[in-house]
């Protein structure tokens, strides 16, 4: 990943998210509409899910998007996949917006596909696996009806499932196999970018390893560009080239994965890395965690200034008022490792 402002090569960016935000407002009911019409003010609880995020994804790159639940990472993934339109800002693939314009915009590209967290929910239970995989390519003319069977077989075999799987229903598969089906469905659209939203989080450890290995294989064989969303820092470290850390709708740190893990600059990243439980195999002392104090603030009313200042051990006056920016850094970032903090670490 490179940062838009410092890199002349950013023209090569395949997918570019530019200052994108997303707010969710609960839709007004019929009664509310009448109340508004009569002049009544309605307290609309607006959730600021994503707040001015910019990032780029280059061809062949695997970018990890890390954060706790409610930080907006899934929403950002769905915006990039063309499921939710951005409230502000834009998301472009090769310079072309991912979604059309208008009040109810539709996705305009098939080149970005998505794999979801829960393979029990993301497959239509009443549709045979073969049709689930084949319907998109058939509808978009990637394959004609005569070759469909062979086409589906090809993608089933790519993800390690036998050709007979096409005739079965999702309930006849285990969780790991269903996730393979979901991956085959996304791949069959021959995407340039694959958005994976916690694709291994709901799987058992031994099955998780099988799916991670499948992603590694696909990354090499198909030269896939991927956004890998996860809260599991171990999985992210294993599979991604670059990562972006998200906190309450904003990206707070981004850079090459190993660099960020070894030398985190944002206090939140540091604390997050410290709070991962590790496998303890030595010693008989009580294991002491460095837990982050406090809770995630509500995205309904995010704190002003830096969103992390309430929990940050280094927070000062400026943090309460001014939103830190990637551009604030005194020296240009080395190798694209970049932080949005007034008082970065080390």
């Amino acid at each position: 990943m490179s940062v838009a402002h410092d890199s002349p090569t950013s023209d090569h960016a395949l997918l570019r998210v530019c200052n994108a935000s997303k707010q969710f407002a609960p839709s007004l009911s019929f009664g509310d509409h009448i109340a508004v019409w009569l002049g009544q003010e309605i307290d609309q609880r607006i959730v600021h899910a994503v707040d001015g995020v910019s990032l780029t994804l280059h061809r062949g790159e695997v970018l990890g998007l890390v954060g706790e639940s409610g930080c907006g990472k899934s929403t950002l993934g769905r915006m990039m996949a063309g499921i939710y339109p951005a409230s502000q800002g834009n998301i472009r693939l090769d310079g072309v917006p991912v979604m059309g314009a208008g009040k109810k915009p539709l996705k305009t590209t098939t080149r970005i596909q998505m794999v979801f967290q829960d393979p029990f929910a993301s497959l239509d239970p009443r549709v045979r696996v073969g049709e689930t995989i084949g319907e998109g390519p058939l509808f978009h003319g990637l394959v004609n009806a005569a070759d469909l069977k062979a086409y589906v077989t090809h993608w089933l075999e790519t993800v390690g499932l036998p050709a007979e799987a096409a005739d079965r229903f999702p309930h006849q598969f285990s969780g790991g196999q269903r996730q393979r089906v979901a991956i085959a469905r996304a791949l069959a659209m021959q995407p340039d970018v694959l958005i994976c939203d916690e694709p291994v989080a709901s799987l058992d450890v031994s099955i998780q390893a099988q799916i991670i290995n499948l992603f590694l294989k696909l990354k090499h064989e198909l030269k896939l560009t991927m956004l890998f969303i996860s809260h599991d820092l171990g999985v992210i470290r294993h599979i991604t080239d670059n990562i972006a850390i998200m906190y309450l709708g904003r990206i707070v740190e981004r850079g090459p994965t190993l660099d960020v893990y070894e030398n985190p600059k944002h206090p939140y990243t540091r604390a997050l890395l410290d709070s991962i439980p590790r496998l303890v195999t030595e010693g008989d002392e009580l294991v002491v965690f460095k837990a982050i104090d406090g809770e995630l603030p509500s995205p309904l009313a995010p704190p002003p200034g830096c969103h992390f200042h309430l929990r940050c051990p280094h927070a000062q006056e400026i943090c309460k008022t001014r939103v830190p920016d990637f551009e604030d850094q005194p020296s240009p970032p080395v190798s694209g490792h970049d932080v949005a903090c007034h008082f970065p670490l080390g």
Partner: protein
Amino acid sequence: MKKILLEVEGLSTHFMTRNGVLKAVNDVSFTLHEGEIIGLVGESGSGKSVTGFSILGLVDAPGQIVAGSVRLQGRELIGMAEPELRTVRGREISMVFQDPSTTLNPVLSIGTQMRLALAAHETVSRQAADTRCADVLNKVGIPDAARRLDYFPHQFSGGMRQRVAIAIALLNHPKLIICDEPTTALDVSIQAQILLQMKTLAQDFGTAMIWISHDLSTVSSVASQLLVMYAGRIIESGPARDLLRIPNHPYTHGLLGSLPEHARPGQPLEQIPGQMPSLIDLGSECAFLSRCTKSDSLCHTSPTLRSDGSRRVRCHHPIAGDWH
């Protein structure tokens, strides 16, 4: 040596389903000492949660405890009459579940729920009850507890709700808390807070715990003993750190190998092929046979649980150790 608190022997819980007998828990035995934290690990369907429920006698039809004994300080719990069992639950053994939003009643304030939990086992004045509830809430890390007694569950965040559930479990100073994936639904930063808190509380109160989880890392940071379950049986047990450093069963070995932190980034993970067999009509062969790389003709007969003193393993070809 500490006194024995709980002895589970030959515990078997089966579910009589339409398609046959599902042996969810099969001949499980272990002992738990006072103040000890024991980790019960396994993948989904391994029988770890059903084991927890069986100890408390909370198995509903079509499930049935078909054999075994569970003794709490020498008192047999299996076959105990329901009213008597109810005095054990909550007072001597309590339970914390994965999802606090399903265990807390959404229409009662947490103060009311805690007072009810207290009143179920002893008579206390309203004021004394409130003091005790606020006290326990403070202990689990809820600030300003006295005022928050009037709060309803929805006014707490997920992490705070789990703290309330833990506080209720601690309320009657039980000797044993069974924790079924208590931190799985929480975020990493909150998980770390709660792990730390539970561990300190267990030490302060001298409470023993059975910590049920699929996550080896979290278990290893709290438990001193580990039980590894696979397809309804204990396949390996022993002191947590020994077991994780030198696993003896090929399954445990494979499970540890498949953790991303054990591989170089970007390199394929060691993986256990296949998946757990159906628990209906399990054959007489070793349940891990089809996934095992070390299997031979011997493995077509079910291995017994063998012990070397501190550790046990259920395998014909354990990786290391001197077994008998």
